[in-house]
């Protein structure tokens, strides 16, 4: 028997609302099947299961918001005997399972995100931290609606000034209220002990997704700027070869299959990362942990505002046509709110391309716990000096925001140089 838990669909996710089950007890599932639909504050995500087996019990009913790490369902090996409890109504299951769900949810959302770095096959096992007993006799309040952080006015003010995400803080004040000292102690020292809530609850209130997303982005970006010592590099890259090649190539292709410069840029980054694996991965617990695979996070702005950066899996091994198709698919599904859990948790390096908006360059904010972010501005004709002559060539300014804990400017500048080199031989992309 194993547990299927609420996955961390990005470092900014602390909890998710189960919107739908696509399976029922007794259904056989295999690795990669989409079994549930989960609403993070950013989007509705189709969640895959990473183990073969038979659904034994659906622990969390539809409409309930639970923290990352909470057991959503249990899975038994195919062919195993059906326990007596199987088939019991979900409501009953909740009653008996809820405390267990809470204890396994004890690791902080941040810790879960950190302890389970996005990998091609995220471990389906429950978090390895020992269960922390819940306070005896405390019945978690119904999820969502009546959960409000206890924060002193002063602490709230100081947190705002310092850009601290209060949800990451443990209160030491009266009845667990967060005080100024807790805020100033910061999330690094605080351990979140507030028990997340689980249990039957009325249908979730309509979410102001735009506001929720702004909050989530704000919290994550504030964390990034607070924790990650960014350094920034920029390099103007001559795109004349790449653009010429693209024009020639596109002449041979039907209009629907034509390639865009952005595909070249993504491909160049993907191949550069293979040479420079130190840019591809995560900073976890004071050490660099390389990503297994090159899964480029593609920053996609959503209609009505907001941003999401799902993974383009194995971008280093994709052809340009595959990249075009992959990005198009991601954009469509991101805007329709139908991304998959692996796409949310897997990115190893994020690429942001603001060129279509006409900006020259972008100094991005790293998406924790990744160690770098590559930005591209517009490809446009600019004056270019070469061989003692001033000419006009299409160029792009590539920027790198990188975590100084994981590497130095020297590494970063080599990375940009490698990207440049890739773009000078577009036929190999």
């Amino acid at each position, binding site marked *: 028997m194993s547990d299927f838990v609420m996955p961390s669909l990005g470092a900014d996710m602390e909890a998710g609302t189960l919107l739908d089950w696509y399976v029922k007890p007794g259904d056989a599932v295999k690795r990669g099947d989409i079994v549930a639909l989960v609403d993070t504050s950013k989007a509705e995500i189709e969640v895959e299961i990473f183990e073969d087996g038979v659904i034994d019990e659906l622990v969390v009913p539809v409409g309930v918001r639970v923290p990352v790490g909470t057991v959503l369902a249990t899975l038994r090996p195919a062919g195993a005997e059906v326990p007596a409890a199987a088939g019991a109504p979900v409501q009953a299951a909740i009653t008996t399972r809820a405390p267990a769900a809470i204890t396994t949810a004890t690791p902080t959302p941040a810790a879960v995100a950190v302890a389970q770095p996005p990998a091609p096959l995220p471990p389906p096992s429950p978090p390895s931290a020992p269960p922390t007993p819940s306070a005896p006799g405390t019945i978690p309040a119904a999820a969502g609606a009546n959960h409000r952080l206890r924060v*002193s006015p*002063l602490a709230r*003010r100081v947190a705002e000034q310092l850009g601290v995400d209060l949800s990451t803080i443990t*209160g030491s*004040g009266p009845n667990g*209220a967060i005080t*100024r*000292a807790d805020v100033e102690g910061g999330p690094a020292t605080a351990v979140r002990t507030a028990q997340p809530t689980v249990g039957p609850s009325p249908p979730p209130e309509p979410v102001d997704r735009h506001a929720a997303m702004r909050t989530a982005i704000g919290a994550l970006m504030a964390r990034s700027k607070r924790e990650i010592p960014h350094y920034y590099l920029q390099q103007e890259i001559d795109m004349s070869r790449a653009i010429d090649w693209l024009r020639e190539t596109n002449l041979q292709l039907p209009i629907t299959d034509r390639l865009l410069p952005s595909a070249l840029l993504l491909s160049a980054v993907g191949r550069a990362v293979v040479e420079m694996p130190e840019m591809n991965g995560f900073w976890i617990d004071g050490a660099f942990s390389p990503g297994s695979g090159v899964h480029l996070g593609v920053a996609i702005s959503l209609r009505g505002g907001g941003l999401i950066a799902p993974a383009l899996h194995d971008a280093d091994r994709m052809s340009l046509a595959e990249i075009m198709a992959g990005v198009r698919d991601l954009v469509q599904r991101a805007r329709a709110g139908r991304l998959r859990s692996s796409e949310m948790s897997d990115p190893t390096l994020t690429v942001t391309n603001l060129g279509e908006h006409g900006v020259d360059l972008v100094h991005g904010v790293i998406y924790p716990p990744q160690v770098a972010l590559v930005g591209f501005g517009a490809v446009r004709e600019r004056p270019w000096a070469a061989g003692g002559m001033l000419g006009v060539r299409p160029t792009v300014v590539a920027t790198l925001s990188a975590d100084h804990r994981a590497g130095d400017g020297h590494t970063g500048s080599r990375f940009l140089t490698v990207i440049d080199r890739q773009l000078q031989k577009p036929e190999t992309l």
Partner: protein
Amino acid sequence: MSVAPAKTITYREAMREAIREAMVADPRVFLMGEDVGAYGGCFGVSKGLLDEFGPERIRDTPLSESAFVGAGIGAAMGGMRPIVEVMTVNFCLLALDQIMNNAATITHMSGGQFAIPVVIRMTTGAGRQVAAQHSHSLEGWLAHIPGLKLLAPATLADARGMLAPALADPNPVLIFEHGSLYNLEGELPPDAGAVDIEQAAIRRPGADVTLIAYGGTVPTALAAADELAAGGIEAEVVDLRVLRPLDDATIIASVARTHRAVVVDEGWRSGSLAAEVSARIMEQAFYELDAPVARVCSAEVPMPYPRHLEQAALPQPTAVVGAVRSLIGAAADE
């Protein structure tokens, strides 16, 4: 110029010195009240003054608070500077009509033609086993009334120094002397003189919490602060001194430093001065607060006669310490 040595004096004697000085300084000043003459005052404050100043200026009155408080108000309107002693704040209720409808209003209703420079002294508070008709702290009721100034001397210097500015004030001034303070003894320079009657005072500086007290609860707060200090919590003790108009600036400045406040008030909690102070902190220093404002007040019962019940009903240092610890939370459990 030689500095005279400080002399040991009690709160009672300091009050008496203040009255004597006022009598000597201004022939318009006189004292009247129940048993203030031959008996020397119910609490012995005026002992000896009859011999010194004679029955014209140290006047025993009938047992009619309404009559003699009213007479005092009338004398003040007529140009005198009366000091009226009311035995306890409970008894002043008999004169509440005079205090509220005359003393507090005549300046206003006469378009400023009449000042009411009367001083009404009264004993307040419990702790002496005189039960439910002589022990209450009703300062909060009187502090409700615009047109009055209310003083609560809690130290020898204030007992000695508040009367002169009170008499000089054109408004009616009520002075509340907590019965438990009369035997307070300490050193006071012989040249100790008038003090301000505008501001609250910080009796003990501290960084972690503000204890706001007045009159009889100032020693309570100071005792609590000592106990807290032993546990590593530095409490700042603010003595309100002036109950109306409240010195918001001192209170708010202290809370802005400590971010926590406990109001210690011997009045009943409901509708108390503590409630007023607490509300002002919330209004003016909400974003400075790291914990809710707490109050330690008297139990909402008629003051009991048996000593153990009376003590149980009153704000005690241990209760103040407990309130502070609850505000500081887990940090206090280290």
